[in-house]
């Protein structure tokens, strides 16, 4: 695939905006890490060595305790196994840096959760009100939120680009019809209707996405319509038509590549708003069902338990960091694609 000089220039401009560039690198790192979150934050061991054999329990079916000579048939508790092995010397266990998963209630006999942060117990940011590790909840919650945002983005943009492009290109009755549809549809009080729908349906990942797409496709459609409209009036389209290009070819080969900048500049902001919306719904209790790890759930636990400030502090800081990063990226992308320089006096 050849890269056009323009794309190269945009990329270089993007790289030259340090804040956005480093935010993008960090974000890519976080995404990669969250894909392999099971290797970093998990209650399953990375490697177990027992009787001369190596086990890699992270992925795949669970290994019952009997595998390692423990007296139970349910899944091995690797943290206990580690202490058992340390005493008996029958093998060794390598645990991930944070040896808890997001659903596990780490309860103690001496105290009630939430437990404060402690390096000794490996709850680096403490636990929530039911004894689940905050780091684990944050990491897996991030993965779900970003996945949700990306799926939402894809659906919204596919619909938006298709319908918007058709509106701009065909114009006429089709355009007028969808204009009215969008006009009506965008006058819906967005959050409230989503809350109503979510409170009524049993919200799963996909139904929630569906509802959000149902009310979120208009904005991209509108932007695409405007920019297709502008591109269609340009000379190169007329030239292509004069050369005998079909409508499909004009749209796919000529107009779409020229509207890419519109699409790209909106992506980071759409991701940020996807994360924000899901967290808000979760916070209000209309989002994904518990015990799904989610930032909104942590937020509501945190605000309800301000005397355990580590919950609120962790999740608010996490949100600030992620959203700032995404917005930095968005700002840099926008500037890279829109080199307009303001002139000024004095």
């Amino acid at each position, binding site marked *: 695939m050849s890269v056009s000089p323009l794309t190269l220039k945009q990329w270089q401009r993007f790289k030259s905006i340090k804040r956005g560039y480093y935010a993008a690198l960090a974000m890519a790192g976080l995404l990669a890490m969250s894909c392999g979150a099971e290797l970093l934050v998990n209650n399953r061991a990375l490697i177990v060595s027992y009787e001369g054999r190596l086990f890699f329990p992270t992925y795949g079916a669970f290994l019952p305790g009997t595998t390692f000579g423990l007296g139970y048939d349910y899944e091995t508790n690797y943290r206990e196994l580690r202490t058992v092995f340390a005493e008996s010397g029958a093998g060794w266990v390598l645990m991930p840096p944070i040896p808890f998963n997001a659903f596990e209630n780490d309860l103690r006999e001496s105290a009630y959760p939430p437990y404060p942060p402690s390096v000794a117990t490996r709850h680096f940011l403490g636990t929530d009100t039911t004894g689940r590790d905050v780091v684990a909840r944050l990491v897996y919650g991030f993965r779900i939120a970003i996945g949700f945002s990306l799926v939402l983005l894809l659906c919204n943009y596919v619909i938006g680009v298709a319908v918007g492009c058709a509106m701009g290109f065909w114009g006429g009755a089709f355009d007028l019809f969808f204009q009215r549809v969008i006009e009506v549809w965008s006058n819906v*009080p967005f959050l*409230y209707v989503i*809350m109503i729908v979510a*409170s009524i349906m049993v919200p799963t990942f996909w139904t929630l996405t569906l509802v959000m797409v149902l009310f979120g496709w208009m904005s991209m459609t509108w932007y695409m319509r405007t920019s297709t409209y502008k591109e269609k009036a340009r000379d190169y389209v007329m030239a292509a038509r004069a050369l005998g290009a079909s409508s499909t070819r004009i749209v796919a080969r000529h107009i779409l590549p020229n509207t890419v900048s519109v699409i790209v500049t909106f992506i980071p902001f759409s991701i940020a708003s996807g994360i*924000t919306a899901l967290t808000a719904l979760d*916070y209000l209790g209309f989002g994904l069902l518990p015990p799904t790890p989610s930032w909104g759930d942590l937020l509501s636990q945190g605000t309800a338990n301000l005397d355990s400030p580590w919950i609120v502090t962790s999740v608010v800081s996490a949100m600030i960091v992620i959203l*700032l990063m995404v917005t930095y990226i968005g700002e840099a992308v926008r500037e890279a694609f829109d080199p307009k320089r*303001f002139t000024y006096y004095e």
Partner: protein
Amino acid sequence: MATFRFEAIDRRDGDVTSYFIRRLLLIIPTFLGVSLLVFTLTRLVPGGPIERMLNEAAMAPQPGAQVVNTGGKGGSVLSKEQLAQLEAYYGFDKPIFVSYVGWLSRVVRLDLGTSTRYSEPVWDIIQSRFPISIFYGVVTLILTYGVCIPLGVVKAIRHRTLFDSVSSALVFIGYAIPGYVVGIGLLTAFAWKLDWFPLGGFVSDDFDDLSPNERIRDIVNHAVLPVLSYVAGSFAVTTLLMKNSLMDNLAADYVRTAIAKGMTFRRAVFKHAFRNSLVPIATSFGGNISLILTGSFLIEKIFDIDGFGLLGFESLVERDYPVVMGILVISSLLFMIGNILSDLCVAIVDPRVKFGSGEAG
């Protein structure tokens, strides 16, 4: 997700008056569509008011209450006749469309029905929440415009100075982080940790015993944090909008002409560029009307402010559908009127904007 608005200029047919008349008329189908959609949804689901009452009765039977076991599912506490009566009372015995028409005809006569939770007229409940929401809305509005417009002007004139970058950074953080997260952060830091402000509510419990001066202090004390979280997000958008549009105008030919003809820079800014720069600000003005009245579910919930937003949230949780529908009616009407007002503001501020002219960007 940010509410999506039309670009007011992007209109094709008719002159301004007929355009606005058409917009006003469009409220009707929109309203019908939205209300029918939500009404149907509220009917299709389990967990309506009757089930809620049954559950409550089953959970905590009142002393002396006769428990009638109908032999139905799970031993209902009501007889079949009572159930039928209840269903008739709530209008659940009729098909959806019939009861929707019934509901609609009452709404047209300004009767929003009776709350199933409070057994009071919905309108009275909603009305009682308005003063609080309006208070926060107006304060936020004044602060936003009072700070953002001057700040935007200064930032545009002092573009790329230290002041510009520092204020940009601050404003930017406010933009990236949604208001409710700001609210939670402020609450934790200043109300819980430092104990400078109360944890929530609109006034203190002993409000009635306070002297007038103390009352004002009390309200202000309670209002600081919520207002900050309301304002945090809108600051960035309005300030940057002001700055960018002023800078666009400063670079325009007519300002250059004015300066070339010997006008001072200050006069050129305030006499010429400033007014034109207000156009984009005006597009967002109408949106404030729904913000003023409806507030934000999230911020009101965080600070436990008994306003319109919290009412909407609570009625959803309690499945108090008459109130849910009532709030939907009012907020969607306000939202639509706000959008139209925005366009009207644009037409007033900028007489060049023709809603009949062709496709502009």
